[in-house]
């Protein structure tokens, strides 16, 4: 059973965001890392780049496949988790902790309200699986 922490917001693209003031910390969910399999490569943007909500900001690759990752909210990147370059396996081991991917200064913090809470995300992944 995938882990879905209560204190985060979730997108239907399987990213999570932790909100502190106008800064959002973003990564991919436990469900997402599990369906990807062994992550062998993470490609992330540079600090200062800006993205609109739901725009692709990078990619995560397993042995078999490439998946784009999308920011749940718009804004400019304030920090990138460089350690994932050399230790992409962190995405499998600690998707909500050490494997955070980017920090973003949100241009419209209200966008968070349209995201899913933990219970809604859990229902969403269950519905997707039975499709």
């Amino acid at each position, binding site marked *: 059973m995938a882990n879905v922490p209560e204190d985060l917001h979730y997108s239907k693209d399987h990213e999570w965001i932790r909100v502190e003031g106008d800064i959002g910390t973003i990564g991919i969910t436990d469900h997402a890392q599990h369906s990807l*399999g*062994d992550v*062998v*490569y993470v*490609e992330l943007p540079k600090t200062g780049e800006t993205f609109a909500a739901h725009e692709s900001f990078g*990619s995560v*690759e*397993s*042995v*078999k496949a*490439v998946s784009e990752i999308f920011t749940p909210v718009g804004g400019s990147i304030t920090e990138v988790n460089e350690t994932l*370059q050399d230790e992409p396996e962190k995405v499998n081991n600690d998707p909500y902790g050490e494997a955070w991917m980017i920090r973003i200064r949100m241009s419209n913090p209200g966008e968070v309200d349209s995201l899913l809470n933990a219970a809604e995300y859990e229902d969403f992944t269950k519905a997707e699986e039975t499709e």
Partner: protein
Amino acid sequence: MQRAPALSKTPLNAAHRRMGGRMVDFGGWDMPVQYPAGTVEEHLRTRTHAGLFDVSHMGEIDVKGADAIPFINRLTSNDVTKLVDGQAHYSALTTPEGTVIDDLLVYRFGPEHLLLVVNAGTTEKDWDWIESHHKDERVELKNVSANYCQLALQGPDALRILQTLTETPLDEIKYYHFRLGLVDDEHAIISRTGYTGEDGFEVYAASDRAEHLWDKILDAGNQGTPEGVLPCGLAARNTLRLEAAMALYGHEITEETTLLEANLGWICKLNKGDFIGRERLAKQKEEGVHRRLVGFEMTERGIARDDQEVLINDERVGRVTSGSPAPFLKKNIGMAYVPAEFANEGQEIQIDVRGRTVGATIVKTPFYKREKK
């Protein structure tokens, strides 16, 4: 509403599901792409101990009759007359252009009996092709794919594990040879062949005994222990064959690529007598190929994937046929077609990885070669 046609299933479908295999549509077959251990672990375990693969989706075509050998010799590029009873070889069904209908294994059971083992997705096409070339030769063709299951046990421990289930002396079976024997009292073809670059065996048995044999082999190989056999999915099968630089039909070899371009000159026996495509292949050999299949490894951060473009001196000159991380070598590798003048070890190339050009170097293949005992 239109519905997709139902996926074909191997006799091990229920076993894959029971063991947590992640099932995908593979060319119309419902197959496990990986098990809970994951592709990397499955790959590494096969290199260091043993992996078990369900390859029952492969097709088998039985060829019997007085003209079996000359008939198949005319349709395939390798020399069937060189096979002895109990021997198999790698070969190709060729078009008049010297390109590839399919690659296959040809097993010789007797002077009038061969078995062709072909790819799953091309079985029907191969069957039609072979039938359409059947004129007055005295042969009886039978598609026996559904009768057989095929289990591939691969890796340095494969022989030891399989030996616990059979009295056939496995160390007497040479590479690319086979014997008929009993595996846990089930009649089987025990073939010392594989698609991983490791020593190992492919066991063909009656379909309805597949699950029994699968479980027996896993038990015999101490499944569940850190050094035991692991069931492996198609993703590991692909990365293993890629490290060994073995061609995959539809990728390195197609109806658009000739055997010589794909470095398969060693299965083109141009002097064996006439076969479909011989003339063109002989001409191409004399004139030289315009492009050639090469292996490369990435020298910059990035993973090449199938179908991405290859650049040399800023010009788009070819395409990646297979690209992937190589779990045992811990490199990112691939194979690609490039113009013949650039097909040299050490040549710097670039791969267009989704709009980003990433550096790579042409290297010697196979990328991985096991140490022979």
